[in-house]
């Protein structure tokens, strides 16, 4: 009996000698991927599928027959995104493989100073979303559109303008008409800049005077309207 066991142990040793290293690891379930049912059939591959191991029901995987060297490990999964890792398998089998983070598009060499624990841990980073939501028709949303608001405002102003101009101080009205005329003449002459400044309120000094003179008159307008109403 002991002889048989010894033979078995001998064979086991023989296998480890002729086998290359075996890499193991697991998938850490999280909110992006809660279990193996969500993950589906997935596997962990090294490099260009030189070696691979399927992820089992409990999230573990074993990649057998890995020769010494540096590899990029990635998870082949239909719906989930995982980070890639750099795995360094040492030539001596007694020391475990070294795991370090690797971002696609960054140099693999030199190795990142951060060392990750072994066995390898893969964390689902994201569940892929393939669809964009269909924009449904929404009246409220339609009226929230700035273009729509401008149109409505314009329409309202068009209706309200006669009343506004009627109640406006004649001096102010005259001034507005003047600046408008200036703007039109500037436009006709092609001097867009001075036209815009004219519309904005003429030169730098003028607005100050206008505001100074207009404010009491404004009051008078208000007073007058109040009087009229009364």
């Amino acid at each position: 009996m002991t002889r048989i066991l010894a033979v078995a142990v001998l064979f086991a040793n023989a296998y480890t000698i002729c086998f290359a290293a075996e890499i193991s690891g697991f998938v850490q379930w999280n909110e992006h991927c809660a279990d193996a049912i969500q993950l589906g059939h997935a596997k962990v591959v090294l490099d260009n599928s030189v070696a691979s191991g399927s992820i089992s029901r409990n999230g573990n995987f074993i990649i057998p027959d890995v020769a010494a060297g540096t590899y990029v490990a990635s998870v082949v999964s239909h719906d989930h995104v995982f980070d890639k890792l750099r795995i360094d398998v040492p030539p001596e089998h007694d020391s475990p493989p070294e795991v370090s983070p690797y971002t696609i598009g960054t140099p693999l060499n030199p190795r990142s100073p951060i060392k990750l624990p072994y066995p390898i841990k893969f964390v689902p980073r994201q569940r892929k979303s393939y669809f964009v939501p269909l924009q449904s028709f929404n009246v409220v949303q339609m009226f929230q559109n700035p273009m729509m608001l401008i149109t409505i405002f314009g329409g309202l102003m068009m209706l309200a303008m006669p009343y506004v101009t009627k109640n406006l101080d004649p001096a102010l009205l005259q001034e507005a008409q003047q600046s408008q005329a200036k703007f039109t003449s500037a436009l006709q002459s092609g001097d867009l800049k001075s036209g815009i400044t004219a519309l904005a309120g003429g030169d730098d000094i003028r607005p100050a005077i206008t505001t100074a003179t207009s404010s009491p008159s404004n009051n008078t307008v208000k007073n007058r309207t109040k009087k009229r109403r009364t």
Partner: protein
Amino acid sequence: MRWLHFFGLTLCSTVLALYESDVGVVDWHHPLVGVPLTSSLNTPPTFHSIPGRPPTEALLLTATSSNVLACTAHLSLSDSGTAWRFIFAPTDHIIHYQQHRDIVVSLSGPGGSTLRTFDCLTGQLILEKRLHAPHTDHLESDDVGLGAAIAFIPESDDVFALTNGRTVRRIGADGAVRWAWESADKSASVVYAKLVTTPSTVYVISLTKSSTSKTLYISSLSTSTGELVASTSVPLSVAAGPSDVLALSSDAATLIPRVVWLEAGTILSVALVPDLTEKHTSVMGSAYTRIVDIGLQNKGHFVALTMNDTGRVLKLDVDKLKVIWEFTDSGKSGRHADSLYIGGLDRDGFPYIGRVFWSFVVRKASAHVYAPHLAAGQGLVSGFTFNFDTEAHGIISHVALHTAYVKEVDLLPYLALTTSTGAVQLWQGDIVQWTREEGLSRLQVAEMVELPEQKITAAHTVDERDTFVERISRQLTDAKELHLYMLNFVKRFVAGPNASTQKEIAFDSLTRDAFGFRQVIVTANDLGKVYGLDSTSGAILWNRVLGLGWAAQIGGQVIPSKLFVVRTIADGGSPEAVLVAQRRASNGLVDTVLFHVNALTGEDVLGKSPADEVLQGVDLISGPLLEAYQLPGNHKAVILLDEFRQVYVYPETPANERALAKAIGKLNVVLRTGLPGQRQLTGHQFSNADVGRPTAFATWASSLPAGEEILSVIPRPSGPVASLGKVLGNRTTLYKYLNPHLVAVTTASPDTCGVYVIDAAKGSIVYHVSIAAKQGRCDLHATFVENWLAYVYWEEEYQWVGQTKGRRLVSVELYEGSKPDDKTRSSELSSHSNKTLAVTAIEQSYIFPHAITSITTTSTKYGISTKDIIVANENGQIQSFPRLFLNPRRTKDKPTAEEQEEWLVQYDPVLPDDAHRVLSHNYHVANIRHILTAPALLESTSLVFAYGLDLFGTRVAPSGTFDVLSETFNKAQLVFTICGLAAAIMATRPMVRRKRLRERWYQ
């Protein structure tokens, strides 16, 4: 200008976005599992009852030629949905699977190097364990399935696995090896092939492979320790293969397992006891010619054929084997084909033995099912005939049996048939429950064919002499259709553009939709079947079995080589397709056969084969085919080259022969010549012979280095080129290099992979790149269209600081001359001109996110829309990558105003892996081998059909649907706005009127 740039990017990322409501409307997916492996008894379809569930909820498990372990949904469903499937790696062949309780165990790889266990119901992987290195030192490549076996003992989930022909392990449910035993005999000729278990002992039975050594070795091991108890050898008078030796066991503890073999017409058997001291005994009675394993070895039953092929059922009994039944009239006869014998179990584990055969007399299939335990142990046989459609499905190659609803005098058998054309059918008695066309998983060639327009009701011939009354009455009759027209108009307004292709179109009216999205995909597989599929749903419109011609007597295989559309709707009449195939007869003779079908109906255009019979082809070349091409121009004739480089034209009409004679001087083709391992590319031109057929003669030969193997030759598609150049921001033009003779070639040698672009007219290399590869592993995929070559490969080199290994996509654009505004008119240039090599290649490499199995570009009617890349990746997705990101002229720095005008984006080495561009979204589209793209009637849209293990179809609009109102276009908002404006006008009209009136009064 910046906004334009951003607008471009946003446009690019949104045009292809998928809406969830489009799923199943614009796309379809047919998951398949592959054709069941019926050649070995370790992998064919078998039924499995689920403990504690009704017998109709049994599962059908199978391993397939596509290397998939699959389980179809339970039998009571009329639909044949796949419950689960596990796709093995291409090098990891399934060689054995077995179900035990609620798990399925598989052995795969050479000698069964990997053991996997799955949950029987959900298909979840429980355990994956490498048992030995995936190379077998003493198993030859032709018998990879040999030397592996699985056995169980009752009341335990431990697996006894024999692998590599000599090692037995007991493996616990957690994957721990409880013990391992290896045969001391290391000689290559002894291969252990069978395992028999009893609760206390495991018997390992070996066979010798060589014809000189004729011995059966049996070893007995203890189940608990793996200790060798005894070992013996039995000399045989004839050499036996694995199918000639059976190992019978039974659940009943009183029955001792026996090894059974046939020797000189006598069935011999030896009882298996732990100390292996028993002597062999023979079965008395008539002489036998063959013993047949019916899958009931562990229930102690098998079938033996007598001298006249009559089937007898034998059963393991106490101390002997016993003949319990003889199938009457099962002997050799001209009235029926050879019988298939199969065993099955019911839910309670009782065995049933079935015989299925094809009757030439009634032209139906018959099944006899024998139940040994029924009728108070006397046995009961139930027989029925069923209407198996041999014209559509070929012949029955395998049957699996399951029995449900067993009563004392009746039973309800389920038969799962696998046919020679790759169909799997489930029959409940004589009613077919479902048919799965698994032959679609082995498609080799495919083409899309446009459908004709719907026939408009014959227009009236307007007669000038019509009287008024006649005209009115005619117009009134026409007006009858008005409401339909109105209804259709409203429908079109309310529904989106997708509505035109929705399933409401009846299948029998084979007409195209408004935008040409509906086409017929003509396709053929290597199992001798040609199909017509609907491109909007993937439904099979028609299918025909390809006839073997003279080889029908001896058997053979028709392997499709090429498929050409020789007549389109533009030529008038029904579209036609020609399938060029090679027929390999069983005697080794190879012929080239052409099948000419109507693409809409599958009818034989030549009228030789009626619609309900197999499609017979035309034997054009008595020998293998070298290459086949389609003649450019309007004639669309097929030209074929035989091994002596003689040119054949099909159809052999005088018009086609004249067209060939006219075009023959301008044709240049590239052929692969030389022995395997020393292949070269040789350019050929054609010459008209005074007598006999025109021949091809070599004009140049490539000088590929020794050992460089040609992987693929990718011709440039002859689609329309919308623009001959690219106008740059500085108003100069880069003219596209559009030499019509270009081909792309990918090669592999032990340490490098190569990509070439070669001028087929004179063999000059226009572009060449060499990529370092490890051990000749060239995972290289390329696509070539217009002046654009894109290839994906694995970059191995990372040793220098700053380097990284990973997958790369290289985008190469070829332009005329050496600088912008150089123009050589390459598309019209004579191949003798020196200017053909005045070419500049602009290339850029990108980091590509996934490994791919196929790559192609979109194709549109006029070639105006952008050409995106479509790939099938290892994640089981069909994904598109926008051309904008693949522009090799992307700037290293922030783009200047001029560059922004060209829509150039700043270079980023990583190509974004955008999930919104996964065309196949939630579908798992597995193992795609090829993607076919075809133009629709709309310039914006390209149809996509991907085939491999699965089939997938969709359509894409790489530049957005600029020629049709977008699906997202808000019609409601448009209507609402118009109504609002109308209301505003109505409200303001009286106001304006009043105002005008007042103005007139007070002015």
